[in-house]
């Protein structure tokens, strides 16, 4: 077993374990931290594939920016996840069984001799001075120009959607509009109920026995 293969298996084991812990962790802060580990480990996979730039981008963007923001939000909102997913552990054995069967089936198909995955050759190693950034940049701004622009549109949409869904007036806000206060009429605040001036005398039930 070659050294890169050993590294691959070690990284994969850590990745799978931390991904599993993200889902099962009881404390949302722990889940976020496990997710950091998962991202960090998968950037190791990129490195094994000689994609240094993507590996660094993954660490910078996901571990550095996204997950730190995520941690802030989790800490500020103080969500009790355990209460939200009552019944999770009750359904867990069934879900795990279904998942394991699916994995086993997929492994059986992909590992069968008909699939001959062994026929795929490993990618040739890059030259020592090959630049990831240059190749990526050339690809993104020429061949993949359209998906690149569309990804930008997707981000714009995400901003619009997030603002549309979260921006609202505070329920406990004390702000009042003076113009609306001036315009208020008595009828807006006060409702007058018409009642008969004289009420009928209440009928007294004489058969009622005095209470013991």
């Amino acid at each position, binding site marked *: 077993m070659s050294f890169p293969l050993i590294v691959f298996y070690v990284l994969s084991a850590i990745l799978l374990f931390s991904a599993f812990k993200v889902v099962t962790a009881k404390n949302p802060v722990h889940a976020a931290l496990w997710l950091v580990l998962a991202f960090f480990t998968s950037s190791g996979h990129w490195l094994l594939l000689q994609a240094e730039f993507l590996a660094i981008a993954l660490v910078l963007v996901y571990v550095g920016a996204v997950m730190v923001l995520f941690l802030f939000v989790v800490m500020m909102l103080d969500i009790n996840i355990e209460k939200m997913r009552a019944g999770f552990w009750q359904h867990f054995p069934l879900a795990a069984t279904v998942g394991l069967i699916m994995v086993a089936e997929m492994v059986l198909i992909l590992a069968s001799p008909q699939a*001959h995955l062994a026929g795929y050759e490993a990618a040739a190693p890059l030259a020592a001075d090959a630049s990831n950034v240059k190749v990526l940049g050339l690809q993104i701004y020429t061949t993949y*120009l359209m*998906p690149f622009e569309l990804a930008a*549109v*997707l981000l714009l*949409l995400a901003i619009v959607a997030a*603002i549309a869904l979260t921006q609202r007036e505070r329920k406990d806000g004390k702000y009042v509009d003076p113009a609306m206060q001036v315009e208020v009429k008595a009828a807006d605040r006060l409702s007058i109920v018409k009642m008969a001036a004289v009420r009928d005398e209440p009928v007294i039930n004489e058969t009622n026995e005095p209470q013991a």
Partner: protein
Amino acid sequence: MNWADLNLMPALPEIFLLAALSFILVLDLFIPDEKRDVTYGLSLLTLAACAALQLATFEPFATTTFSGMFVDDPMADIIKVAMYGVTAAVLVYTRQYVADRGMFRGEYYTLSLFALLGMNVMVSSSHFLTLYIGLELLSLALYALIALRRDSAAGTEAAMKYFVLGALASGMLLYGMSMVYGATGSLAISEIAAAIASGHSNAVLLVFGLVFLVAGLAFKLGAVPFHMWVPDVYQGSPTAVTLMLGAAPKLAAFVFIIRILVQGMGELSGDWQGMLVLIAALSMMIGNVAAIAQTNIKRMLAYSTISHMGFLLLGLLAANEQGYASAMFYAMVYVLTTLAGFGVLLALSHAGFECEKLEDLKGLNQRNSWYAFLMLLVMFSMAGIPPLAGFYAKFAVIKSVVDLGAVNMGFGMVSALYLAVFAVMMSLVGAFYYLRVVKNMYFDDKQSDAPIVVRGEMKVLLSVNALALLVLGVLPQGLIELCIEAMRQSLAVL
């Protein structure tokens, strides 16, 4: 690629749509609430301009641009023009409804246009990457639209369900795409087709990826056994958004399937035919049977959608030009019918009242005989009763199955007649619950005397829309020939 070679003309409508939508997005910030009609008018104007640009740049053959990632063929042109029309109709129908429910905000219109842009990208992509980004653009806009009414618990729940299951479906689709990439070494649809045709690609990996692709597509289409989200989302969303996600996206999903299964993996039709037969048969059965038990009309229409998607797949699984054309015709007629059906429901809803129970339609004929008549046309068309368009659409897809003779079920050839007979039986079952609505409207006493107030432009458009079902039913030849011609021109190349 050289910058001088970049031909932007085929993508002109999309570029204009994006520019106009960014303009509306910014302009809307400076418009006070009482002048929100400006946003509404500008959105309609944008749609009209897009349709005009689409027709002006029409070419009777396929042109590609953006290094072959974007394709503009007659099928895409026709579907896109239809989608502009459908989106405009949705905006007109929902104008009063959203105003009554505090959703009459700029975001409603910009998100709708974003969704349309996503659909346009889906329709015009010839690369797995752009197909997927288009799908995500559409889905993300729809998730936000469903949750737009923030104080509605049902809406938020529907958005959450749609989001989680949509993410799962996207995962399946991506997994399938990655397998296909592994087998063929490319994500471009034309190269995938060439690699499969050359016979050098890894067959096991291909079929393995195909299974995931079909599952992801069925999820997005809402076909059994991946239909669980449809009734909940249809019922929980505000009716305006239900219409938005039930109409134009079905057209986009149809082209999406054509691009992936037919243009990309057409050589494997023997493999996906059997899968589609099962999905179509189950959809027709479960959709029609479950719809009988519903008391909520939006939920009933959701199950009816599931069964209609089954019929749509009947045309696709024929795997020949005639079948695809009939499926395209079916999709167009289905969208037109849905539009009119939800249009009547929106017309009957008013501030503080949602028309969504079957009883709410009782005695509609006594209240307003014109809307009752329009709803009657819609229900008859959905049930497939001649001379309405729905009959001809069902006839066309079933005919394409009968002409097939036999379908490949994977374990062997099975006579296609069984499938055709089954489809007819299921459409008979479906007739029951469509006709129950008609019975409610005409033979029951009215439950309320609330006046039906509808804006003028909606009244006209709704009438034209429902009467178009009658016209298309009597004279379907024009549209069906258009579909056949579009399919022939679009499938010839790539």
